[in-house]
């Protein structure tokens, strides 16, 4: 069953970027190239991790794929159609959670549903479910200021998942959290993504953590800097759930570490 699903998944491409170039004016008439000639496919059912030194354009590439940054050259196709504006199949999880401080947890999670014109009652129900699935039942009427950093990021994830997006984009989702909290949340998200009845089809995650990438990804994209480009692609075939103490896991992590050193 699992094999079948996998083989079907590998044939379909959800998102593909072709020769993407991103340049910004540097304010003095000159140009700064952030991304140079980046091409990347994200297949159905795949978890892709973007890693690389700071300045390698990981976050910019993520935003290009999510339709938040328009490439200066090249194109991004989602299900065969060129993106104009935000990717319609995307859920986005921000580094800082980016919750609206004046809305309750419930209302924050409802934001995207409301934008899609879903009625108040259905909205409330879906949001409650998503909040409960992230382990925050009972916090619906709290405000973000009353939550810990980890809880806030849970709300951010619930807000993205409640839309049942095709693809989930995550921008260093655990890096603003303290180590134990980050570890726990990462396990949970990895579990969510590894399960058979998972909500999202594909995930693109930007991360600094080598172990994080190896634990979660089917494929790791190693990026190099000046200007940002794809240096190497590393497929990860370890069985799930993955255990960091497994020698094979450590081997892969070492390989990735070596690649990062070269990039």
């Amino acid at each position, binding site marked *: 069953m699992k094999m079948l699903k996998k083989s079907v998944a590998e044939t379909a491409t959800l998102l593909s970027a072709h020769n993407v170039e991103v340049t910004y004016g540097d304010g003095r008439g000159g140009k700064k190239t952030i991304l140079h000639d980046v091409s990347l496919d994200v297949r159905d059912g795949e978890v892709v991790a973007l890693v690389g030194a700071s300045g390698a354009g990981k976050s910019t590439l993520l935003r290009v794929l999510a339709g938040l940054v328009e490439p200066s050259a090249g194109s991004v196709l989602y299900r065969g159609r060129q993106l104009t504006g935000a990717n319609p199949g995307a859920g986005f999880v921000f580094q800082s959670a980016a919750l609206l401080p004046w809305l309750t947890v419930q209302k924050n999670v409802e934001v995207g549903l*409301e934008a899609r014109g879903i009625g108040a009652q259905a909205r409330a129900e879906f949001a409650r479910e998503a909040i409960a699935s992230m382990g925050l039942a009972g916090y619906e009427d709290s405000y973000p200021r009353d939550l810990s950093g980890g809880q806030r990021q849970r709300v951010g994830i619930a807000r993205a998942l409640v839309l049942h997006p095709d693809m989930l984009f995550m921008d260093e989702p655990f890096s603003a959290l303290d180590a134990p909290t980050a570890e726990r949340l990462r396990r949970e998200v990895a579990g969510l993504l590894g399960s058979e009845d998972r909500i999202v089809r594909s995930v693109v995650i930007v991360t600094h953590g080598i172990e994080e990438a190896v634990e979660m990804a089917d494929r790791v994209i190693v990026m190099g800097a000046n200007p940002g480009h794809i240096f190497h692609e590393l497929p990860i075939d370890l069985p799930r759930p993955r255990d960091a103490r497994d020698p094979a896991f450590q081997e892969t992590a070492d390989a990735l570490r070596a690649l990062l050193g070269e990039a």
Partner: protein
Amino acid sequence: MIRVATLSLIRVQAVSRFEALTSRPVRGDAQRSFTARSLAADALVLGLGTLTVLILMRAVAGAVAPIAPAGVPARISLDPALLPLYAARSVLRMLVALACSFVFALAYGLACARSRRLCSILLPLLDVLQSVPVLGFLSATVTVWLALFPGSMLGVEAASIFAIFTSQAWNMALSFYQSLAGEPAELDEMARSFRLTRWQRFWTLDVPFGLQQLIWNAMMSMGGAWFFLSASEFISVNGRTMALPGIGSFAALAAEAGRMDLVGLSALAMCAVILALDILLWRPLTAWSERLQGSSDGRRSLVLEVLRSSSVAGAMRRAMRVLAELLNRVMGRLLGRTGICPWWELRVRALAGRVAVPRVVRAIRGRTGLDRALGILAAIALGSACVMLASHAGFGYRELGDVLGLGAVTFARVAVVTALCSLIWVPVGVKIGMNARLMRVAQPLVQLVASFPVSLLFPWLVLAMARAGIGLGMGSLLLMALGSQWYILFNVIAAASAVPAELRELADIMRMSAGQRWRQVYLPAVAGAWVSGALATAGGAWNASVVAEVVGTGANAVSTLGLGSYIAAATTTGDAVHAAAGIAVMCALVVLTNVLVWKPLQNLAARRFALN
């Protein structure tokens, strides 16, 4: 007795909110039990609400009355018993103007933030608008207002409200624009990636984000508007004098009649009004907006707590929810989604595409091209205005030279006022801002004092200065400073309170001397805020010169040489050419100093002294 009751009310409210947080199934508004306290709150809200409505209706009735056969009255009764009614009329005008300013600020700020092209025109325009004195706006538009509402006092009221509006709106629009420009990138990306409708984005992100700043600014701006209360109610432009019932008119006429006791009385009435507005309007608003921003230990407001514990708030919230749902649907459909063109824009673009764009337009369409074209256009307009003025009958190059000379005199006054205010208020502001306990006490107090219109007391001050042998030439410095000094103080207090504790601890651990502290820590830390404050103070001083260089009307008038008194004289007699010349010179001087002095200083402060 009432105080005790309301205090225990707060405690109940706090407890029930705590319960709401801790107990899983949250009770809805509808299930709230009718306790004695909530009933008391309801009674209080209903009673006060009805009273307010009755007073305002009385004021409205006067405002919409037809003009008597004798024409618009040039004076009002000086019966002190009428002062409460006058106060209500003044407050009504202020509230209407404030509401208009809010709407204007939201629209203008949004337009600036969303369209870079519009912004390059609208933002410099704000600079110009801010530099035109109230009397200038009044004399230019009063005939329009009178023609809009023929035969009704509403025309005069509209003129007065417009005058008040002009001393608030520009500042508030700038504040909202700056808030929008400072929105965190991630929140903007959130709005786009979750594909919020434009309508939804405006109300769930933009407005709540900018509201606190806007309300603070509105509070300041209202203080600034009170300063010109007499000028906007006792309208004396274009050779006509029209007096609207209000505290400002009362004070002006009392001064004219030499009744200093009545001037004092009007000042007392003003104090009462300011206190009442602070308690009933600004405290609840600021407390509410601070809570919106997520701070839990902000200001408290009794009025807000009572409102929240009454069932009125719940009913209003439910009604708003239904209305909001409806509007979200309709407006969301109409205006399209964030980052995606709405249908009408596509239609317009398609139409525009069919029209051949002239090469000239295409050439200046580039941003730098547009800026350059605008600059050239402005220069041409200014130049031709000068030539036209100079060749106009009764106005030659000599007169133009005279006006420029007067401009130099007032310029010097403004410079001295700004420098002196900085010397005094920067150290005081730093001291207050660095001391949390002092700040809690001093800030609301300073705010109240700042919103008092000292201009009401100008006749007194002029008399006192004359006794002490100080002429208005020097005295106008004091009068100008009295209205505009607060901007520096407020900005510096805010900046000093935001200095990270680590920096102060560093100064302690390094055992810095007082001199080194000020030189290396305190002054650089508040430099940016000082620039903004000094800029506003200078602008305020320019505007104030129109009422500070000439004090009083009729036989009691005292005046001194300067651009302010020149404009005042020209607008009073309705000499459009001279008024326009004076205002144009003032605008030019203000905008030039903005470009040549303040903008470079701001850039420097942002580059070298930004704390982040």
